């Protein structure tokens, strides 16, 4: 078999026609594979794909100012949906706080949750080996029904499905940071961006990280009246707090209980509830509440204060000393790159009515309000940013690897041409990597992404395929040197002899990575190695010999006298 290969290769090397065809074919394959990524989107890029988990969490966030009972209504609704799922083993609801912290929650600020309008629901699923439906499909299936039914009970409710990340956790798949110097403008722009996100296909769980503004009442103290009635503002505050919020006024030590037992004082539930959410009801209630001064005189609170309605103060957020707001969205089983570009295009097209838009940086936008002249910036962050950074850094690592190998080869061979051939040969494995992803994408139910691990696989491949070429060149050299073979004969004989270990090691790599290919995170690496190795083998057994023949080997090998003795000893 290897003998036959040797003859075919020899024929190919010696015919200029076939040589040209091989090189041309390689070039065409290379260009085609590169085209698969960029314009045609046949292979999609993503940092890390979804992972099949045994658990995930649902966050429910109601509008600020919602009560725990309202929150409970929403979680009860979600639990009803969960209870229809066969594969759920148990579910825990945490009202008014975050669930026990996990990796995703750490970045999403789950441990800071401490208010009546938040809840987290943990779902534990059956073991992934016994379950036919991966967790990410389950999330995708449950999401529309749950958000539609439970999210619409109260306005501005955001329900998001949080899966444990396959790799490092991020705030969200897509984060649009909106910078500016006035809160109102940021707010308007943020909500407009969120509207675009909601309309963009593939984006779900859209949330503006702004507090909703709701109605509140403020008690304004009349200083003269307070002074005259012999009470103090502190006393007034304390009594109000005591009456409606309640307070621990004393404690009792106990040997039975693990804590001191507080004695808690407050108005009774029935008597403290306002009848309605309006100023009249508030005033009515406060009339019954009285303060006692030092002389024992009683004064109703309403005598001392006036009550005015007002809007709540939303939280002011800043990042790196600049005021900003986040608009976040998750992606629904798609790469975040493409919805982002779509949303960005939509912003560019539709926002020009009120803003002058300018592109800054790679994807970021600067928006100037046409009327006020105020400047806002839209900066993309989140998984997208991490993906770009990681890909850029891995790209840098890749180039560094190429340079290092090139230098190593130059030191070893003392020839730029030979080192160049080795490098070129190993670079061709990219064809296999891309085509491999495309093939895998055809065979898998969901999208098979080109991920960060694919790039790592590709970088490793550079080393592997340069090894193949290296062994080939080394053997050719010793054949020409020691046995005095002709160039063409030596190359084809070396290729044929080295073919066996090359095939063997390639098979070892392919078999070892075949098991990787099934993994969610490292599938990209597995596929890159499998198909890249195949390409690398072809490159080092066909393309590299042709390139070698074209090079002036005698000179590069530093032979002093040319030996030209025909060879007929096959072993």
């Amino acid at each position: 078999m290897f003998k036959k290969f040797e003859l075919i290769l020899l024929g190919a090397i010696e015919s200029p026609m076939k040589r040209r065809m091989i090189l041309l074919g390689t070039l065409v394959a290379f260009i085609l594979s590169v085209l698969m990524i960029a314009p045609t989107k046949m292979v999609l890029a993503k940092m890390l794909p979804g992972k099949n988990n045994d658990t995930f969490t649902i966050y429910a966030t109601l509008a600020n100012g919602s009560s725990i009972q309202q929150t409970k209504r929403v979680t009860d609704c979600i639990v009803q949906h969960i209870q229809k799922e066969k594969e759920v083993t148990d579910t825990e609801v945490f009202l008014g706080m975050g669930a026990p912290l996990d990796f995703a929650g750490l970045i999403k600020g789950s441990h800071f949750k401490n208010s009546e309008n938040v809840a987290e629901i943990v779902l534990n699923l059956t073991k992934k080996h016994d379950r036919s439906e991966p967790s990410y499909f389950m999330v995708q299936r449950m999401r529309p029904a749950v958000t539609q039914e439970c999210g619409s009970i109260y306005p501005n409710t955001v329900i998001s499905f949080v899966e444990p990340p396959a790799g490092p956790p991020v705030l969200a798949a897509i984060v649009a940071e909106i910078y500016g110097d006035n809160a109102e403008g940021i707010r308007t722009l943020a909500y407009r961006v969120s509207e675009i996100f909601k309309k963009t296909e593939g984006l779900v769980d859209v949330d503006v990280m702004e507090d909703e503004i709701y109605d509140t009442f403020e008690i304004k103290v009349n200083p003269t009246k307070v002074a005259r009635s012999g009470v103090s503002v502190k006393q007034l505050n304390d009594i109000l707090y005591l009456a409606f919020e309640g307070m621990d006024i004393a404690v009792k030590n106990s040997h039975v209980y693990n804590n001191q037992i507080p004695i808690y004082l407050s108005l009774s539930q029935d008597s403290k509830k306002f009848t309605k959410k309006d100023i009249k009801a508030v005033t009515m209630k406060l009339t019954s509440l009285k303060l006692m001064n030092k002389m024992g005189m009683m004064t109703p609170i309403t005598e001392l204060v006036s009550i005015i309605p007002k809007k709540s103060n939303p939280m002011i957020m800043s990042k790196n000393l600049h005021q900003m707001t986040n608009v976040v969205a998750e992606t629904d089983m798609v790469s975040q790159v493409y919805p982002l570009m779509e949303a960005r295009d939509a912003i560019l097209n539709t926002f020009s009515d009120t803003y002058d838009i300018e592109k800054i940086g790679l994807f970021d936008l600067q928006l100037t309000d046409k009327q006020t002249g105020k400047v806002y910036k839209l900066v993309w962050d989140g998984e997208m940013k991490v993906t770009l950074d990681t890909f850029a850094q891995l790209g840098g690592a890749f180039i560094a690897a190429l340079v290092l190998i090139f230098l190593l080869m130059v030191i070893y061979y003392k020839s730029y041409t030979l080192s160049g051939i080795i490098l070129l040969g190993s670079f061709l494995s990219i064809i296999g990597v891309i085509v491999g992803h495309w093939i895998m994408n055809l065979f898998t139910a969901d999208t098979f992404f080109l991920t960060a691990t694919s790039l790592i696989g590709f970088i490793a491949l550079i080393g592997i395929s340069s090894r193949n070429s290296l062994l080939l060149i080394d053997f050719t050299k010793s054949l020409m040197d020691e046995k005095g073979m002709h160039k063409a004969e030596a190359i084809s004989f070396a290729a044929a002899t080295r073919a066996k270990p090359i095939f063997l090691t390639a098979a070892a790599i392919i078999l070892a990575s075949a098991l990787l290919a099934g993994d969610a995170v490292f599938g990209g690496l597995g596929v890159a190695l499998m198909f890249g190795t195949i390409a690398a083998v072809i490159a080092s057994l066909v393309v590299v010999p042709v390139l070698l023949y074209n090079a002036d080997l005698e000179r590069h090998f530093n032979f002093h006298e040319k030996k030209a003795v025909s060879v007929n000893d096959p072993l």
Partner: protein
Amino acid sequence: MNHVKPYQPKDIAGKLAKTFLRNPLTMVLGIFLLAIGYISLSIMPREENPQMVVSGSTVIVALPGASAAEVEKVIVRPLERKLKEIKGVEHIYGMAMDNVGIVNAAFFIGEKKEDSNLKVYDKIMQNTDMFPKGIMQPIIKPLDIDVDIPIVSVAFFSNNKNMSKTQLYEKVKDIQHTLNGLDNVAVTELKGGNKHQFNIEVDLYKLSGYNLSMGQIVQAVQSLAYNVPAIKNRTKDNEIVMVGVQNAIESADDIGNIIVAEYMGSPIYLNQVAKVQSSYDIQNFKSAQISINNGDTEFTPLQDQVTLTVSKLQGTNAVVIADEIKTQLEELKETLAKDGINYVITRNDGERANEAVNELVFHLVLSIVIIAILLVLVLGWRESLIVTFTVPAILAITLFIAYLTGQTINRITLFAFLLSLGLLVDAAIIVIENIHRHYHSVESAHEDVDDLMIKATDEIGPPTNIATLAIIMTMVPMAFVGQMMGQFMKPIPANVPVALVASLFVAYIFTPYLALRMLKKPDHHNQKKGGH
């Protein structure tokens, strides 16, 4: 044949082969390597994901009564500027709300945790004068992934209808103390549940009816609920007599019978204006519920639960701790059942890590077997056996070095092994293939076997060395990839080069050694020329 001058190796490959070929200690070395590898595998801490060094601190400053805009100006902005001065801070997030300002400093990934925490603490403490008057003591909360993220969570719930809300909490609190005593457990916390408390719920209408103020009630209760130490006195014979004052409040009735005021000469008792109960913390809006699937979709209705979470100390074995917790709970199960308390383990990262690791170890073994079968088909079973032996030896060395450098066994480490598996059999395959070729070639039929082994190994030494170096070179830049992803992938550039170097040594030392003892020299007279 002894009169033939022995082959002089030129490369390190041949030299190693020569040194170990007839050395009686080679066998011992092999066994030793396998042993340290196995020991490392069993004692190294196991995790699902690699440890990431993420440092950051959150500073919380409360200024009661200030609006969000005020907090932003007087607390958040000055604080942000100060934190900006710290080296290593990547991002600063500020949040100004009514009454409170929060500033979070996130350090670059990989910045040392202890140093970063200290820097933030120092900066705040050195600049306490920048805060406005009236603030409460600033709280500095460092982020600690190991301690903050629990590895095990257990939900306790009671099927006993008579059990009060607080009893469950108290029982779980006892269990918490027991579990906290286990080795390497860092933090245990409770979520959900209600604490015991005396509630005085005043009826607003009665309050105004009796013309009373809330302040009067506070004073009346506080004057009675007072704990004092016992009084010590002596008798004439110098004996000590202790006189203790009992806390006036023992039960809810005691509180209810407090006289809050006198009205027209008759006393007004607290229970006349308020409902006094010994019950749970009604002001606590937080709660936790659970629903369990009893098969198919037969869920139990939502019921109150208390979740106990346990986190571990850094660098300790999650699997061991989780198992200990499980056994401890198993022991308590019966006592709990008597009170009608059940529990469900709702998170077990130890088990998850162990499963992930075991699955990958299985994959690793499977890959080795597949490669061995492939080699049997192409090279023959003796050669295959030799190569297959080198794999565990190489992995053992790599594991041991990983153990020495303080790494843990996690998904990524094992992926690094799987990735290197394809690469590390190469050296051994190339050596054995060359030995095989020489062994079966007619030219070398007359040569000394020892010489042949050394020569075959030596011959492929330089290209193999340089090729392995080339692969190592590709891994080196990966170590400099920053951010979370770089941290996450770190085990790959950390372990693959080690495995590759180990593969060279093992291939040069053990392949010829084993080949010499296991391969049979073919009889060229009976065989067809050419072999395979």
